[in-house]
């Protein structure tokens, strides 16, 4: 299991780096899906079987597909970005990478400076998760539902286009 954790972890990190650095948007997304799958393995190893399944189904399966759809709709996959192949000049990434490195250093300092001895991990069954979700977190689920509704209404409104009418305020623009 430990080996699985390390292998999945390395794959997750490498594929995430690839996802962030690829110039081709579709490639980046595919790497990201790999990264999410690896993350799912990590979650599984950590004992969260339910979450691992959700990671695959919702994150890699649903959300990422949405991204792919939009990229294909806008047709910005390959060529537009290819033209700027040399986009990854050091000037652009060195600052952000440095910042992220510092942030990571700070966080690892905090993580590794634990006064308490390392606790062990244990498996949390999907059943307990489900029960807690619908008892203790019932109101939370309700709020999440409202949140999704707000998202749907917002996306519906914003996605709507009709060319002929123009807002009176915007005639000047």
């Amino acid at each position, binding site marked *: 299991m430990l080996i699985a954790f390390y292998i999945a972890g390395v794959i997750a990190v490498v594929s995430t780096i690839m996802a962030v650095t690829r110039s081709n948007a579709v490639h980046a997304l595919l790497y990201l899906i790999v990264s999410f799958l690896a993350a799912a393995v990590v979650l599984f190893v950590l004992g969260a079987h339910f979450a691992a399944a959700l990671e695959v189904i919702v994150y890699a399966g649903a959300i990422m597909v949405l991204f792919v759809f939009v990229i294909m709709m806008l047709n910005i996959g390959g060529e537009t970005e290819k033209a700027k192949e040399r986009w990854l000049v050091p000037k652009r990434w060195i600052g952000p990478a440095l910042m992220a490195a510092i942030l990571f250093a700070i966080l690892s300092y*905090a993580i590794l*400076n634990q006064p308490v001895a390392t606790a062990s991990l244990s498996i949390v069954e999907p059943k307990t998760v489900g029960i807690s979700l619908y008892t203790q977190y019932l109101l939370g689920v309700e709020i999440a539902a409202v949140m999704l*509704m707000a998202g749907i*209404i917002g996306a519906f409104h914003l996605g709507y286009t009709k060319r002929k009418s123009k807002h009176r*305020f915007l005639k000047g623009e």
Partner: protein
Amino acid sequence: MNNLITSGELLQLLPFITMLAGPVLMIFLISIRRNHTFTWILTLLSFALTLAFAVYLMDKEPYVSPLLTIDRFSLLYTGMFASAGFLVTLLAKRYLDNLSERREEFYLLLLFATLGSSLMVSSNGFASLFLSLELLGISLYALISYIHRSGKAIEAGLKYLILAALSSAVLIFGVALVYYETGGLSYSSIGTYLSQHTFSPLLVAGIGMIIAGAGFKLSLVPFHWWTSDVYQGSNAPVTAFIATVSKGGMVGALIRFFTMIHGTEYQQVVLVLTILAAASMLIGNILAVRQNNLKRLLAYSSIAHLGYLMISLIAFGDGGTQAATFYLYAYFATTLGAFGVISILSDSQGEAEELEKYKGLFWKKPVLAAFLALIMFSLAGIPLTAGFAGKFFVALSGVKADLWLLLIFLAVNSVIGVYYYLRVVVMMFSAPKEKTPASDNSSTFSAGYIVLGLLAIIIIYLGISPNGILSLIGSAVILP
């Protein structure tokens, strides 16, 4: 299943249910037939009912569940947000009338956003806080870009979305670290843990990230970047909403969090908050000094005002929370008023955001100009306005907690503030450059004028006799 909701608890949740029932009803109505005015009235009704229920529940038993605590404190804030939402709705009507279609969703989103903000204050743990924060956020993304044929609105919406999601990620990562360390998501369990253990680096990092995420919503320096662009890009009623309700929710949530964990007893927390407050006051005011766009000016001034408010949050005990809440009231009234004026003046030429447009306003619309002058005086903290009383209480709480450095910052910054607030006033009184065409459809804004009249009364009332509100706030204790 002893945790399912009983009918008695449903009654206690009424203010929130009202804000939910309104949209549900509206969705049904929209699916049958769209009617702007009717939806508008329904929205107003929902807000009014929310306020009424909040007032009604004030003296009833508080509701405590694993996720929400509905006590007098949260009801006070809910009432405040509902009133602000009511006023924003009044202002928005004319705006949306100019939109040819699809006007009704605005009100749904507005109600959702207000609900999110109210739930933030009622949250007694990070799970519900995160959810309600995102409910607010997601409604706001769409509201900001609501008039989505404007490039500016889309730009503002996207900027806000990316940055808000970024800061949400930071906040929630911080929460994860805190949870990892303490084993609890509710404030009370974190508080219990803290009272028994020392502050470990991981916990400090977690709380630091939470403060950073909260600082984004409050637009504290250095998390303030979005403020001016979003204020400018979104339409004036929504800007008023962002400036008030969305920030107020976070202030309330922070107050509850710090009360439960006794956050201001830890010098790391105090140090970080002090630096954020000082930087916000200074940078906010400096950015506003020569700003020629009224919306951006108000954005920067709101950064500074949240900085002032932070003083009382840091001072905390001895009326600090009361001062913060009172300051929020004053800030709500003033900010809503300012954006009310902007939305009344906005016309087919676009948003009235350039200061140049306000040149000689006194000669064309004396009532509006006088009102805006009152707003500016209140923002500048001239006595007998709400702004003065708020600043007075904030300063008083700072004095009691011996926060002299911050007080000196407050004093210096209010001088800078006076400069640009008066600049607006002087602008309105100076002679207009050229003869502007007679103002159009000035009689149809009666709803807007009602809002302004109400706010003027509130601003002066809070300045002359703040006692009533103050004792109300004083009675609003936070339940564990």
